[in-house]
Every structure is written in C-alpha cells, then in structure tokens.
C-alpha cells in the first residue's frame, strides 16, 4: 500500500496516513472477499518483482527507488492478472489515503465527519 502511494508533489503518502491502524481496522471489518483479496494481493506484491522488473528479491528488500519503479510497472503491466494485483493494492491504499484528514486538507477538501456506524436497533 505504502509503495503504491508515497508522499509526492506536496501530498502526504499512505505512510503518513496511519496505515497500520487502517489494516487492523479493515482486517476486522471487511468482508471475506475483500480481506482475502487484499492478503493475496499483498503476497503477490512481495513476490512479483522478479516477473515485473527482473529483480529476484521480494518487494520489501528493494531500494526505495526500485520499489517505486516496480509499483509503477506492476500497475501498467501487460498481464491483466498482474494489473489486478496492483488494482487491489491501489484500492486499499486509496481508501486509507483519500479519507485521511491530511490528504483532504492538501486537496482543499473539508475533513470527513466521524462515521457513526450505527443503525436502528428497533
């Protein structure tokens, strides 16, 4: 997630948006299809540098520069399935990043109100 949206062009990156809290929260709240899709995409993201940029290392061992190049190539890869891995990573990254106050402020958007998470119980 962090590699997909790093800080750049005056905007905070996912790393500035409490990604650990986000992962903990979504792991508890997401439906199985979303959570297991994210887990599978996370594994694939670590394993695919050898296929995508020809470097036989997991993504977390790549230098910041190489990882950035890898993130770009992954999401523009000619294989549809590989692009889907990037899509899921970007979807999760986008949810964490775009809802964060610091990003919204940088985009001249008002902060989101709290999500009540409530419903009529009777």
């Amino acid at each position, binding site marked *: 997630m962090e*590699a*997909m*949206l*790093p*800080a*750049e*062009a*005056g*905007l905070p*990156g996912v790393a500035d948006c409490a990604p650990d809290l986000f992962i903990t929260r*979504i792991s508890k*709240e*997401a*439906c199985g*299809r*979303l959570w297991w*899709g994210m887990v599978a995409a996370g594994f694939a993201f670590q394993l695919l540098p050898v296929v995508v940029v020809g470097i036989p290392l997991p993504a977390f061992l790549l230098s910041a520069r190489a*990882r*950035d*190049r*890898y*993130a*770009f190539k*992954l*999401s*523009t890869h000619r294989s*549809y399935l590989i*692009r*889907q891995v*990037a*899509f899921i*990573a*970007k*979807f999760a*990254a*986008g*949810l964490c*990043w*775009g*809802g964060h106050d610091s*990003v*919204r402020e940088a*985009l*001249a*958007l008002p902060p*989101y*109100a*709290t*999500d*009540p*998470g*409530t*419903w*009529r*119980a*009777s």
Partner: protein
Amino acid sequence: MSHLAYQPPGPAVELEADYVVVGSGAGGAMAAVTLARGGAKVVVVEAGPWRDPEDYPSTAYAGLRDLFDDWGTLITSGRAFWPVVQGRAVGGTTVINSAICVRTPGDIFESWKKDHGIDGLADSVWRYQDQIERELSVEEVPERARGHSNRLAIIGAEKVGYESHVMRRYVKHCQGEGQCLQGCRGRRKQSTNITYIPEVQRLGGQILSCAPVERVRIEGRTAVGVEGRFVHPATKKKGARYFVRATKAVLVAASAVHTPLILMRSGVKSPALGEHFRSHPGTGVFGLFDDPVDMNIGATQGWASTAFRENPGLKLETLAIPPEMVASRLAGGGAELTRRLSRYRHMAMWVHAVRAESVGSVRPGLFGKPVVRYSFNRRDMERLRKGLHIVAQTHIAAGAKAVVPGIFGLPYELKADEIDKILEASLEPRNYVAVLSHLFGGAVMGADPARSVVDGTGKVHGYERLYVADAAALPTTLGVNPQHTIMGVAATFAEGLLSAQGQKPKPRASTPAAA
C-alpha cells in the same frame, strides 16, 4: 412491534401477514407501499440494517462497509472482472444511488410486447411514475447545487452540438453535498428508507431488518411464506431464525442478483431462472482543466444526455467521485500515481452507461454467494469505446487541456489533437474498467414459460402466490436509469394483486419525509 432488527439466537420469530415482500429497495418498497395503501397487512423482510440519515457514513470506506452489498466486491466472471455494485440496507440501492429519475421510454413497452409477449403495462407504469414524481419531490438539480463540473458539461455538450440537460432527481432541495453514494445525510434524497418504508409502517405494516431471506417456503406449488435467520450487521453473527407466513402472496424484490438466487434456493424450477441477466455497464473519462473544477462540490450527478440512447446506445452523465476512488481508477502506481492524484481538484469525471445487448447469468457460487457471468460482445465494446470518445470530445469542448481515457494501451493523457486515438483503441474488455450498477433480469417476465420466469403480472409461471417485483423481472435494458421503471412496474404488479382481491390502493398515507 413495527420494526424488528437483529434478534440474538433464541426462539424462532414467527409472524403472519397478507403479503410478504422480500427486499426494501426500489421494487420492494414500491410494491409494499402500494399493497399497504390498499389496506393489506404487509411485512417487508430486508437483509440489511435500517440506517437513518444520522447513521449514514461520511467516508467512502464506511460507505462501502455500511451500505454496499459485500463492500462492492462482487465482480463479473468473464473476460474482464468488472464490479457489480448494489446496496444492502433498508432502502436498498436507493440509499446509495444518485436518485436520477427518468420515465420509461415508450419503445421499451413496444419491445416488451413484440419480443416478450407482455402487453398493457405502459399506461399503469406511466400513471405510477406521475404519482412517484409528486410523492418523491422530483426536481431539476437547483442552480445553487449544480457545481462547476455539471456546468462545464452543459457547455461542452452545447459546443459539440448534442442535446443535454440538467438532471431531474428524487431529491428535495439538493444542497450539492456530492455525497449521494454514501447516503444523503441532509435527508434531501428521497430514498425509500425515509419515504415509502416508513409509510408502510404507518399503515400497520412491519419491517424486519438484518434478516436475509434464505428461501421462500413453497408447499406443493404454492408459496406460503419466507424463512431465514437474522444476521448481526457488524459482527455478521447469526441470530434467531424467523418464519413469516404470507396468507395471500410472497413478492420477491431482492435485486437482479439476489432474486434469482432466492428462487433457486426455494426450489423454483424454470429454464429461464438466472438467465437473461443484462446491464448498462458504465465507464468514464477524466477531463483535466487548468482551473480547479472541484467535482466534489455540487450534486453528485447533475447533468445528462440521452442524445445517444438509440445510436449507438449510450447515456452520458457527470459523476463526482472522491479521491479514495480516483486512486484505483487512475493508471500507474508509486510516486507517479501520487503526482497524478495531486491534480484531483482539476479533474472532472464524466461517464457513460452502455445500453448493452450482451447477456449473462446469475448462479450460486461458493457459500451461496452470487456468481455473475457476463462479458461484453464486440458490438457493445464498440459502443463503450465510442462513448469514451464522445465524452472526451465533450471535455475538450468544455475547455479541458487533456483527458485521461483510462484505456490500457493508450497513453495516460491525451491532448485535444490526440483524442481520436480512442477510436483506434483495442476492443479487448480487459483494457477497460467498467462498473455494472444498472442490473436487469435473472427472473424475467414474458408470456412463454420456456423463456421467462414470471408472467405480465409478476407471477412466477407454474407457481401460486409467488411474485417477482424488482429489476429481475425486466426482460430488457432500458437505455435510461432504471429506478423509475422498476418502481412503476412493481406498483403495477402490486395493484394487480389488490384488484384480484377487490381492493385498490388509496392515496398516500401521510406526510412526506421532510428535507
């Protein structure tokens, strides 16, 4: 008790009514209120929880969590994986939709008559649509709520030279908060959870929420009620079982995806069940403007054009999407993606929905979850691509310096003199991102039981007291937004049931939901 939400494990809940309606979205709520206005005792059984505007989420994250079916993660099984999105809450998809109201075009009834043997619906559907427009305060998006993106689109269409208009929506005094997809916290949007469902309650009906129906109980060939188990909306833990007996009929209105599955689980036999699934898949183009557009300010969708409905078969609209969703919609990753997103304020998203001829199916998959098989044929791909070109032209005419077509294989950005490249793009569905939000079929109506599931009154062929009253019954796409047609058809079916009992729906029960 007129509303029963999640019940923890314990003794089974048993209720009885004249009519049981499964689902409280566009079709279910309309059928239920029509029956209740005719003096019938109605129970509405809804899978999702009942959230009032005060309960609505603000963030896109919680919108998916609280209001969308399975977080919007259902995708088509076919050549490409396109999301199939709908709501899961009291109010169904009307809670998360943009409330665009379009009357059923006359040619639709002609094709239902010619190709499906269904006659005599037009007058009743249009009469109900008049009534619904009054009751749900349908109005043009007011000037103050139009926002820059919608205004630019009007200019663009004028310059390209096609008809377009400000949308009419089931919204009372829209404030232009651009939050329709997360539910309208300002109570402006007249979704059925704040309009028709409360009216059903006032008329003596009961609502069961958090209560996904497992099956319709059928004795012999007669539907006698529905059964299922309450499910906690947050923990997903299963609660008490329930059975709701219907002394007159069961109407299933759980959407084009879920209605066929419920009928299958209930043992309904029909060669057409789960078949003839159709859609208006939609995709869009971002225009990149020099000055900020701030598409998030103004009505979520405020501009439309039906000029291309017949040829090539498209509906054009504006659509405001939050940065969360733009991130996965843009190509690229890493620092380049953040740079692209840094122009968010300068982006306007305009979309088109394809009046597609492709046909798919709905089946139960793993753990009973729906599997939607659907792929675009070549002609539909040509329509999709043509639509992207028209939208790109409109952006450029409105002053965009470039467009982002979102087609894999083309450059990320195209300048004014490059947009014709869209017309040469590959027609491979995997190179496009489209979303299915207008869904039709799966339990379609028709005169021939070999090709349809229900007849022209909504009754399931070969079964007694079992009806379908939602998008699943529609045998074709429409080329316009479907809520109005679904409501008109559902009300007509419900009125038919009342007439058979010598009853008639009376005028609206009480005050409309206040804005």
